[in-house]
């Protein structure tokens, strides 16, 4: 009789422990899943400038193979701004 009661107590303690551990694990898993989702969302919104591929074309006046690029008089201003952030 006494033996049965002890085993019942141990069983109930173990069951309680397992249940609580399970809940804690689920809680943590949910937290990580949520964090993972948030991290993915942040990564999705981060935009890196797209770098164009090196494409060449033949310059009609010289016959030289030159790198294609769209000329822009504002380009040097943007360049200085980025360089200031990185190298000043």
């Amino acid at each position: 009789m006494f033996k049965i009661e002890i085993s019942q107590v141990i069983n109930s303690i173990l069951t309680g422990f397992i249940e609580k551990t399970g809940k804690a694990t689920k809680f943590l898993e949910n937290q990580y899943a949520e964090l993972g989702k948030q991290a993915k969302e942040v990564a999705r919104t981060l935009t890196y400038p797209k770098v164009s591929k090196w494409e060449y074309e033949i310059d009609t006046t010289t016959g030289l193979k030159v790198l294609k690029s769209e000329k822009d008089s504002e380009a040097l201003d943007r360049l200085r701004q980025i360089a200031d952030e990185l190298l000043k």
Partner: protein
Amino acid sequence: MSVSNLFLDTNIILDYIIPLRRDEYACSYELIEKVKKGDFKAWTVDYALSETLGMLKEKREERIGVKDILRETLSTHEISQMVRIIEEFRKTPNFEVFAPEPVSQEEIFKKVQNICVQATDALVLLSVLNLKEKLGNVILVTRDDKLLVRGKRLISTAHPIELIESCPTNCTSKSMCKYHK
């Protein structure tokens, strides 16, 4: 009046990009502004872009104090921004980047032997000669003293100050510069 064709050495491009050098070598800065306005037509070779990127990475490493750490330490974002700097430079009006004709190692060796320059400088000289064949006359613009003097045996060379009216007032190295005017 025809516009002169200039070949910009990597050091001139870096003088424009690196903030401290914009005042230290303000003549290079002013020259590139003149290129943008159309006073000159400027050229460089495609491998100079790689050299420029390498120098920018080194400068960034110095800036954040990781120059002596052997493992890769710059972030994707930093590298992407540096690549963007090069991309923006390529968009400069009146500036073209060309692919030189392939050269043999023997040609480079002979140039090194004949005019006492480093192999990379010999490659630059061969590229300028390649451009000269197509355009007639080209001036190699550099601040490298050896290249300025020894390169003259093959092509026209000039320090950036020779192509602008006078030294910019903000130049911080004017008193030490032997080319100042």
